[in-house]
């Protein structure tokens, strides 16, 4: 019985650790999405093409996705 309780506790700790790690990773992804948008602006200055709005759309889509998943993971793991 004691062993089972201990196992459950360790399992919970690992899950919590995973949760915080996932949140940290997603936060990095949100920051990285911002970097991508800035880089596309800089690349457009270097070589302006008609594809730039399309690339920016993708970058904003990525940023939005990252933010949504980041917020969703916060609601899941931090209670």
């Amino acid at each position: 019985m004691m062993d089972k309780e201990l196992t459950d506790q360790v399992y919970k700790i690992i899950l919590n650790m995973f949760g915080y790690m996932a949140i940290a990773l997603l936060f990095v992804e949100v920051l990285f999405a911002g970097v991508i948008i800035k880089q596309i602006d800089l690349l457009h200055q270097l070589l302006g093409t008609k594809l730039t709005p399309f690339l920016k759309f993708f970058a904003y889509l990525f940023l939005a996705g990252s933010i949504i998943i980041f917020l969703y993971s916060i609601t899941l793991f931090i209670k």
Partner: protein
Amino acid sequence: MRILSAIIENPKEYIHFADREPGEVVIFLLRKHPITNLPWIITTFVLLVLPTILNYVLKVSGIALPEQFGLVTNFIFYLFAAIYSFESFLIWYYNVYIVTDKRLIDIDFYGFFYKKVSETQFNKIEDTTYSQSGCLKYYLIMEMFFFKLPQSKMSLNL
């Protein structure tokens, strides 16, 4: 799809480039052949399929993980796959060589945090060499050009 071609003559799709002189005409815009994108496309495909396979393996082996655990892991995986494929595409798309009526410009984009621009006037090119190696490159008519510059003793690889 001309905008994604390897060799673009008299490009109209390219609005401008950095340090363009007034009246400078772009004759060619060159980049690697689209087939060179195949490795990252295959890797992206594997990255997209991998969570499904892993989920199936976990289900078959009877390891029950909490639902949110699997969901967030999948999302993180897909986001990393998206970053990887997007960056790989940008590396291919922005690694270009511009031949104008005055000079040769080499734009190297190695990743989000490093890019390099080299340029030379035509009269400074001392020597040119081209090489073709490998079966695939032979069929796709892919060649490697080297322009030797005298002062800097630097080669411009095209």
